[in-house]
């Protein structure tokens, strides 16, 4: 994994984790990684372990919470779920993201034309 890519990823990955938890309810780390890969159609193929840094960050900010539970193959697993504050943050960030993404998209298409 090279550095420039990971830097871009940090913010977006957090956002994707939140989105996945909002959409699918409580998930363990593997589940989250799997969903993100599926939804992004493997476009963001990175080490799945990166997800855990993102989870710790989100926990610290109080946007998600964690509880131990049992996975589908009967293993002890930590299940993460989005908190109310997390939902609020996701909504705000989604709007923000769309605005920036739109702006960047327009910018890039402008460059292509000239």
């Amino acid at each position: 994994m090279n550095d420039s890519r990971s830097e871009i990823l940090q913010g977006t990955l957090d956002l994707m984790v939140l989105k996945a938890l909002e959409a699918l309810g409580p998930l363990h780390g593997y589940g989250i990684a799997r969903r993100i890969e599926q939804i992004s159609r493997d476009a963001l193929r990175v080490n799945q372990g990166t997800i855990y840094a993102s989870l710790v960050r989100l926990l610290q900010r109080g946007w998600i919470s964690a509880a131990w539970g049992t996975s589908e193959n009967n293993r002890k697993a930590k299940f993460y779920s989005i908190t109310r504050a997390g939902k609020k943050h996701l909504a705000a960030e989604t709007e923000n993201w769309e605005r920036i993404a739109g702006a960047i998209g327009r910018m890039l298409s402008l460059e292509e034309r000239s």
Partner: protein
Amino acid sequence: MFDGLRIAVSRVRGLVRRNHEDREFQQELETHLALLTEENIRRGMAPEEARRAARLRLGGTEQLHEANRQLRGLASVEEFFRDVTTAWRMLRKTPGFTWAAILTLALGIGANVAIFSIVDAVLLRPLPARNPGQLVVLAYEQRGGKLESYFSYPNMRDIRGQTKVVFSGMATYRTSFDGLGANGHAQRVLSAYVSGNFFSLLGLWPALGRLIEPSEGGVYSAHPEIVLSYAFWKSQFGGDRGVVGRSVSLNGHPVTVVGVGPRGFHGVFPFVETQVYLPMSMMMVENWMSRSLLQDRNGGPFQIWARLRRGVSVAQAQAALNVVAARLASEHPKSDAKFSLAAIPETLARPIPMQPNPVPAVAALFMALGAMVLVLACVNVANLLLVRAVSRGRELAIRAALGCSRGRLVRQLLTESLLLAFLGGAGGVLLGMWICGEIGSVSFSPGLPLLLDFPFDWRVFLFAFGAALFTGILVGILPALRASRVAPGAILHEAGRSVTSGRQRLRSVLVVAQVAGSLMLLVVAALFARSLERVQHLHLGFDSAHVLNASMDPSEIGYSDAQARVFYKEMLERARALPGVRSAAIAYTIPMRTYTPEMDFIDVEGYTTPPGQPKPLVNFNSVSPGYFRTMRIPLVRGRTFTAADNRNAQYVAIVNEAMAKKFWPDEDPIGQRLRLIHSAGQWREVVGVVSDSRMLTPFGKIAPFFFIPFAQNFASYATLQLRTLGPAASAIPEARNLIRSLAPGLPVFDVGTMREAISGSGYLIFRFGAVLAAALGLLGLVLALVGVYGVTSYAASQRTREIGIRMALGARPAQILKITFGQGAILVGTGLVIGLAGALGAARLAASFLIVSPTDPLTFIAVPIVLAAVALAACYLPARRAMRIEPTQALRFE
């Protein structure tokens, strides 16, 4: 600063929680790997390959662990600040509780800060010199006697010459009182005569002009120069920079001011301001010391300060000194037999080297008493916190039910108690500063330029910080652990009523601890107070009531001995004629004045010193006719002094009974002869025996002591003693007027009653100890009472419902009283028993500073009774309230 805190906190947390969280994370990663492997197998990989692919997909576990740890560390800092703000909010919600807790802790911490800052000043804070850790004071022991620190100059020179390997320098120091005349009036100053290298040895620089230089001080009267201390220059010369080069007079001799010492340097003795410094050789000019002072090996007035060479330890220096001591003893068997030398670190040689040094023990005793008060304060606050935890039980239960981990709850509660402790600590520092200011303003001994300021340095603040941290954890940990152990279900269902029994037990332990602790404090305080009282009412052998003292030294305004003799004669005659004066006398020194003792080795005719022992060293006093009448010391045999006992007559002496018994046990002392070795060395005839009186210490065995006529051992320094008809203090203006009319401008010092004089110096340690211990004891008592009252009344209110039921079932008020009061009484009784055991131990530690026995029956009976009475009263009030409860009301309670 902030980053530092962040790192520190996360590291501490990392150490504590690391393993646990690492294991959790490991578990998480393992599950992840297993799930990934299964997925790979489902996709058709072979199991071995599937596992390998899964590992690759997840990434290096070690890196993941590391990244996880880093993030966690930072997280705890954020949580910490969140905890602090939450704690602050919670404390502000209950201002009554918060103030009570902060005040209690401030009292506890303040008392400790004050004690510590005194200990700091006495024992820990180094001299404001360059590398003060290298400074040592030399002392010697001769013929197995006690440790002495005044050396002769030849000895100092020999020691210096032979220890150059371990000491980079050696300087001499000697303090004295002198009269300094400047700006048209004379005043008494505490002066130091120093060798030329003294200031350079200490590494000090002048604030103005120059200091005494290494080349000075070796030749009699060669350098009539004086250096002022910074504080003295500021107060007496208004900080005038033109003072350098001015001529002032010292004891009537002109000396030139050459400079001002560095700011903050008060001399090498603690608690006094050494006001002026002169070259060592001026001592012979100013203090009638023999001109052979620098050659005489016998006895000597010099304290020796030395600086260890870099990297040389005190033990190495000591080894070198042992060799030198052995050599000196063999070279000078007459004066230096059985001679041993010691190097003592400067901080342990305050005010003078002593063996054993009692200062650390006293310091430890008071630190222990202070710690006791702090523990009592902590117990009180812990109690408050326990009660608070009960009333917050619901809140905590809800938080636990919502998934807040136990550790998290404990941390939140601990943060609250730490916040309380640090607020209390801040208050304690302010309080401690105030107490130290008060102590500094108390005048203990009017004769010395006392310097009782205890500036707060980093050690004191560090101590206060440590005390607050300790306090916060101590008061918080038990309540926090208890509160967090609560099963949420139980509390939410039962409204917190039936889960209090465990806490009740803990609170009972706290009450017992409080009663025991305050009993210990009070017993020690009472022992000091009893010692002080005993001292003051001790039979001293003289009558201290109605005696006024005033000291002076006419040589300070340049009087010759002949002039001074005339002056004293006239003063005595006129004093006796004063209307309110019964009798008057002049004496060189007064009882218990430790800084002007007169003592000498003596020869007694017909008495042979046992082989190997020094000649007897006996204290004496030079007194005028009328002395024994004025002091009311009864004459047992013979006669007292008369005006005829002058320097042209037969030299005479009067001995006390102890001396008569020691030297002439079976003979009539009258007519026997004795001789002082150093001063006024003629044979004297004993003409009288007086009864024993306490001249040196207020306690212990009375030692041999004798008196000689003032006229036959004249010194310019003397004290006028008046026995008055009315209160002694009322004669002060008359005495001052009398002296002023005879010698205008003569400084008069140590003016005060004999009562003040003996309590000021001889009893200083008892007074100081008694005041300090009493203050601590009272504080402890108040804290214990508040604690006992709080706990019993809370216990009673917890049982309100039970009491209501009992009364509804027909229990009489007296029975209810018995139940509630009985419970408190048992706790108080247990506390008293434990406290008595502790108090016996504490008293044994303090025994060497007490005059009364450490098992003084009065103290050990009266103090527990008083404490029991007040503690039981504190139990009784809530019990009586419980007794008056209306059953119907009680059942509806809660």
